[in-house]
Every structure is written in C-alpha cells, then in structure tokens.
C-alpha cells in the first residue's frame, strides 16, 4: 500500500512537471498570423460609413445590413457594444474583413479564433463562409457593462439578391 502510494505520488508529480513544461507551448499552437496596419480611428469610421452606404440592402438590429460583393475588402467598426454594420455574405466566397476598434481595447472572436483590436490598428481577417445560416462574431475582452451584448451576426446567403 505504501509503495503504491509512493509510486502514485511520483507519477502525479512527474505528470505535473510535463504539463508545466508544456504550458508555454500553447503560444506556438495558437498563434494565427493575420494582417494588420495602422489607421486613425476617425478615418476608419469615415471609410466604413461610406462603404456601408454604398452596399446597404436594408436594416437589421438598428444598423445598416450590408451585402458586400464576393471577394471584397469589408470595413467593420468594433465599438462599445457592437460590430457595425451587419453583414450578409455569400456561401463559398472569400472575403477580407478589416476590423478596427474606435474606442477602447476589444477583441474579435470568429470561428473560435480571437484577434486583439487596439484603437489605431486595423486587423484583417479572412473568411470563407460555408453553407450555414449565420456566423457569430463577438468581443472576447471585457469592455464595459454591455460587453456580453457585443455580438454581431453575419448571415450567409446561398445566392446573391
């Protein structure tokens, strides 16, 4: 019994040391390369508003619903507590979403991957939606009392309107 106890303790400590050594490895596994560039928040807002006005097809949740052309570069504003504008994308097409925070630090979580959003920096995330109804994008960094509401829904259309 005492021997079993001793071996059990040693096995547990050995496994712990392996796990402790493996802990820093997560960074290599999780790091996802994304494009990023600097742009003043005011300029980014201006560009996003112009783009939304040009491709608006309606309204959803009190914001413009935008249907960008396939393969296009789409500006999206992240701010307390929304991703603006709402998007409708086409299944099977690739898009480059340029997302930037215009107030405080947020993150954007798309398909289980998280990217930091620091004001003054634009993050480019490539998406190729599969044939499913929606993609949820949300903020993963606490940003105020409305943080849990900071979710955007991207609808996926099978064919263009």
């Amino acid at each position, binding site marked *: 019994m005492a021997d079993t*106890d001793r071996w059990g303790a040693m096995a547990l*400590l050995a496994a*712990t040391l392996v796990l402790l050594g493996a802990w820093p490895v997560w960074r290599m596994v999780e790091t996802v390369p994304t494009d990023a560039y600097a742009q003043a928040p005011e300029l980014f807002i201006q560009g996003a508003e112009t783009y939304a006005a040009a491709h608006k097809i309606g309204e959803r949740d009190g914001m413009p619903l935008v249907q960008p052309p396939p393969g296009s570069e789409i500006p999206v504003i992240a701010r307390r507590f929304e991703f603006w504008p709402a998007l409708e994308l086409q299944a099977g097409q690739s898009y480059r979403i340029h997302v930037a925070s215009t107030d405080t630090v947020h993150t954007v979580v798309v398909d289980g991957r998280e990217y930091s959003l620091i004001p003054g920096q634009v993050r480019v995330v490539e998406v190729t939606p599969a044939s499913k109804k929606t993609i949820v994008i949300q903020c993963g960094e606490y940003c105020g*009392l409305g943080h849990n509401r900071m979710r955007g829904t991207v609808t996926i259309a099978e064919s263009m309107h």
Partner: protein
Amino acid sequence: MFMKIAWDSTALDKPARAELRGWLLLALGALAVAGALALLLALSRAPGAQDWLPWGADFFHKGLVTHVVFSFQIWLLAMLGALTVLAAPLGMRGVGFVGLGLAVVGSALLLAPTLSGSGEASLNNYVPVLVHPLYYLGLGCLGAGVGLAAARTLLHRAAGVAGFAIQTMAVALLSALLCFVLAAMAIPAGTDIDHLNERLFWGGGHVLQVVNTMLLMLGWQVLALRALGQGALPPLTAKAAFAALALFALAAPLVYLRLDVLGLAHRQAFTQLLWYGLPLPPLVMGAGLAWQLVRHGIDWRSPAALALVLSLAVFALGGAAGFALGVADTRTPSHYHAVIGGVNLALMGLIHAVLLPLLRRGATKWVRAQFHLYGFGQLLHALGFYLAGLAGVARKTAGAEQGLDSAFKLVAMGAVGLGGAIAVLGGVLFVIQVLGRLLRREACHG
C-alpha cells in the same frame, strides 16, 4: 518540529477557537450580506419596488458586483483564513487576529460604497469592482488580512496531509496576491478603466481558482477520512496533488515578466495555465474519492458523506462543462456555477462535520436538507445554464436582452431559475443555522 493537526474539540486552545470563530463569522456573515444584496437586486428590477429603493435603478449592477465579491471572494477567502488557524504556529495567534481584523475592515470598506451608491460598476472577470478608492482599499485590506493569516502557516512545518494542504494553499494565495501587485505595477497610467480592471484582476483571479480547487480537495480528503475512515487519496499521493497545484500557482507570476500585461497573449497565458495545471489533481482525487465511496458504501444520513457525494457530482458536472468550453463561450456560466457549487458543498461539509465540533458547537437542524436543497438545486441550475448556453443565450444578461425566442431557451432558463431558487433555499437554511450556532456561547467541554 512537526505539528500535526488534530480534529477533536480539545485540539484548539481558547484564543485559537476565538480566531477560528471570527473567520467563520466573517465567512457566514459574507454569505448573509450577499443574500441580502440578492434580495435588493431582485427588488431593484421589480416594477414599483424599484421606485422606493434609495439607490435608484442603477443599483442593479453595483449591488451585483458586491454580491459576487461577498458570496465568492470573501466567503472563500475567509474559509481559507479559518483553515489557517489549524496549521498556524502556536506563537502566531496575534498575527492571525491582525489578519482577521484587516479582513473585517476590508469587507466593511467594500460595503460602504455599495450602500452609499458611489462609484461605477465594472463587471470584469473574477473580482468585479466599484470604481471607487474605498473599494480598492477594501480589496487590499481583505487580501492583506488573509495573506497575513496564510503566511504565518509557512513559518514552521505542519505535519499530515491537512497541514501540508493548508501550507500549499497559503503559497498559492500569496502567489495570487503577488500577481495582483505585479499587474498594478505593470498597467500603464491612462489605461481605459474597464480594460484596467480586467487585467488588474485577471492573473491573480486565475490563481485564486487554484486556491479554491485546493479548498475543495482539502474538504474531500478530510471529509472522506471522517465519513469513510480513509482519505480520498493515500497520504503521499494526496500531498503530491496539492504540491502539483501549488507548482502551477508559483509559476503564474512569471507571465508578468514575459508578456505585456495588456496584450492578448497575457490573457490567454492564464487561460492556458488553468487548462494545463488545474484539471489533473482534482481529477485524480475525485477518482480516488469515487472509488472510496463505492468501496465503503454511502451512509446517506451522514452529513459528511452527503457533502462528499453531492460535491463530487456537482463539481464533476462543472469540470466536464469546462472541457467543452471554447473562446467567449456562452456555456461558461454552467461551468463556473457548478464548480463553485462543488467547492461550496465541500466547505459546507467541513463546517458541519469538522469546524463546528472543533468550536464545541452542536449539530444544526435540517443539516441534510441544506445539502439536498443546495446540491440538487445547483445541479439543476448549472444544467440549465449549459443548455441555455448551447442555445446561444448571452451571458450576464436579463430580460429582453436574453432573446428567449424559442421553447428550448425558455425551458433552459426556467431550469436555471428553478434550480437557483432551490439552491438559494438550501443556502439560506445553511447560513441561518450555522450563524445561529456560531453566535451562541460554546458548550462546556466535559
């Protein structure tokens, strides 16, 4: 010199019993305050009642912050303070009383801005705050008080699994406090207040979960000894389980040396710390406990056995839910409500089966009802949260914000409400009964 913890009523001298009673009064008092705040929170959302509350409608978020801090942080830290009495060197009673005094003053400071309606609420993770100098001062006093009580246990060698467990908990707590200090030093002036609070309490908050897991495991080990005549794990393996958690807690401050405190990598490093470091020791001890329960059979009349079975079941549900979580996952509330429920059940068991007898207090009434109501209520509550999260109901929202647009979501949130109400009944019974025993004079020792 080795000091072995004895668990009978002659084990503690009068000053030690006075200090232990003080920590338990703080722990149970914190739950009572949290319960009263929960009632005020409900009133602050009730049409009509909200108009005559002196704090106005914005009390909801402020009350919620302090409710969480009292029901989670103060309760658990005061329980740790109580356990340090059992492993403290004989000559260090004064330090314990200073620590207890600081923790009581800290708790009062936390309540003051809440009741005066001061400061803005920040619902950041782990230690939500009111943005007010008194609130931060209160948290500082609380941390310093429990830290002081914990640090004294390291000034000698306590023997036995329980003594070792309390000392490793002390190490983990001091590491958590160091993380808070390092974060405060590293965060630049002018940082957005929400971001500041999140990162100030992120690292240390994670390490506190290691401490909470150790509280659970100590409860399992000691209660198993009481109820089954044998610890959940044999002594050396049990000590290794506590040492394993302490090792990860000790490694945590290194993150501040390597990664920008405001960066995404810093945040993820602590999430990963829990992924790598937290599951194995309670998994091994939980398996050991399950084996002992099967081997010895369960005496359902014994509060210690009841605490063990329900704690294991609720914690296992929370642990399993934790493994399923992804980034910004809406099922997260099911995970933390269940694991906290498991820890609470173990601590309730420790109080009934070990600490009240140490204080020469008799058994309370309706003990089994307390465990049944709280345990099964928490199971239903957490299960409801899991199903609601699966359906995408947003976290920490209420009313129309929840978007309960399907029968599935309605049923899931109904289970959350019903389970919560049942658990609250058990919690109220526990607090009233135990506070009643603590406030009485101790029985003469025959």
